[in-house]
């Protein structure tokens, strides 16, 4: 889908401050738009909310109440944020002014989704190597992200240079990397 097309879908929606599409499962920014006065780091937003959707999906599955129609609404002090799974590969996010009526927001969201969903690629995305995704996850969530590679190296015994080429990590190295990542984040497992 072209940038021009995405912008044409979203830019005239009233009270909309930003919109983005996140490619799953890697939580990478696929397309975005933001209002002129907005100063959002859309790549970060796309990644964090992609993780949120994934966690939400797993939580609902654990509750045995998951359905593909799942939508998340977040009401913060300044924003009304809606996240919607378009399909297994893409999540659509829209950030509205907090003052926008919820009914109107849902209506616009549905209209945007109708137009966007037909333009997305049909083929499923190739999943990137797990080692790469683990390191990206750490970069987003670990404290002192600039030191993460060093910390992981020290914990796993894997040289920093090897970690920098994470797409080439061996299965056993990935297992060590994952275990160390869990320790750094205090998690029992990584839901990537």
């Amino acid at each position, binding site marked *: 889908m072209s940038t021009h097309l995405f912008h044409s879908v979203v830019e005239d929606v009233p009270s909309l401050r930003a919109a983005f599409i996140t490619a799953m499962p890697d939580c990478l920014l696929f397309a975005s738009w933001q209002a002129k006065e907005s100063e959002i780091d859309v790549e970060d937003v796309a990644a964090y909310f992609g993780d949120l959707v994934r966690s939400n999906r797993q939580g609902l599955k654990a509750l045995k109440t998951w359905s593909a129609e799942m939508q998340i609404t977040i009401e913060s002090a300044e924003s009304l944020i809606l996240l919607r799974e378009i399909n297994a590969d893409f999540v659509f996010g829209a950030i509205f002014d907090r003052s926008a009526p919820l009914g109107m927001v849902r209506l616009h969201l549905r209209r945007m989704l109708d137009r966007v969903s037909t333009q997305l690629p049909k083929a499923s995305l190739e999943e990137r190597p797990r080692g790469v995704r683990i390191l990206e996850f750490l970069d987003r*969530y*670990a*404290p*002192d*992200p*600039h*030191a993460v590679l*060093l*910390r992981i*190296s*020290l*914990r796993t*015994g894997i*040289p*920093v240079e090897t970690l920098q080429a994470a797409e080439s990590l061996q299965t056993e190295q990935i297992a060590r990397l994952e275990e160390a990542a869990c*320790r*750094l*984040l*205090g*998690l029992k497992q990584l839901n990537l």
Partner: protein
Amino acid sequence: MDQINHLRSVLSGHDLTFLAEVPVVYHCHHYNLFHDQTIDDALGEEMSAQIRFRAARSSVGELLHKVGHALNLSTRTERADLCSALLPWMGHGRLLVQSTPQGGEATGTNLHYGFAWREKYGARIKRDFPADSFAAGFAAAACEYIEQLPPGSVEATEDRCLVLRDPDCHFQLKADSRSTPYSTIDRIAIERHVIPSFGGLEEARISAITEGLRNFVRGVAGDDRGVIAAFGVFVTMHLSNYYNGTIYEAIHHIEREQPALLPVAETLFREAGIQCVFNTFGNMLLSAEWEGLVGKPSGDPLEMLSSFCAIARGLGFGHWIVHEYDAGKRFVLRAPIDYEVPFYLEQYGKTDKPRCYVLQGAALAMTVLAHMVRWKDNPKLTPEFYLSLFRGKMPWTAEQTLCPTRGDTLCEVVVQTR
């Protein structure tokens, strides 16, 4: 606490500070957490906790005995009162030790490591192992001191901790027949390694600021919570024997077991020094107290470097001097010794490489902050700003070129542009 305050002293010309002849230094929670975290990364949480506990028990045990001796404390009640008062005075939180000759228990509130970890990281990540090995060591040493047990004979286990979302911290204390002599160094040991002191550029300015800072620091003590909240950080008076004992045990372990990883561990220990300078030194420069004492920082790099040296001296890091400065190109930091060197030489003897990791990291951070921060704009020293300065390839490199641990007569770190 006035009595304890009077036990402070300074090794003249070397700006190393002591409490009852035990070496102490001020560090903030950013440094402390990163330091302990690096020991965890290097050794794994279990071994790390053991080494940190033993270093704490040893260094605190020596401190309690020397303070108690200096104050002529003789009764059990007096010894217990000292244990209750000392930890919060140093900014480490409060710890109620209920000891018996068999051990006992201790309950802590606002203990520095757990409290600071929760404040800094608690909203972001989970943790499933306790954080207060230093307080555990304090509790064990306090039990030994109060009950007059042999050094190193009490073990402590932290079974509740703020970082585990418990309401307080709690330690089980157990005495056994084994004992381990305290492995620390004191002022007499340090004096064996001093050389005649020397000055550098801006010496008069640095000395004057150091004096003012030292007077200020003399009035610093924990509040009702046992916390020293100053300059936007949580400050502690800490035992350099603890820092040195833990760093060098971790470094030597890596050297023995995984020598290929030594440069990684060393980089992380340097990183702790960078965090110290950015957070503590930087926020001190921007504080109202600094403005009252020195005036607002102008941002001139040489002025900034000399200010950093004064802060280091005031906090007990050693007699740091600006030996050489070539504007924007090269900075040479020197010290006759720092707080790391005497410990290494006393405990391990000479080695084949420099071992002043805090000094190395600090020299690099000082240079970056002196040249890349607009001090006149009163910047906020946020984590994001930190990353913008220190993430990725920096335009400066730092190398320790002289170190008494390998036989040189002084410490020197050269920082220059790439």
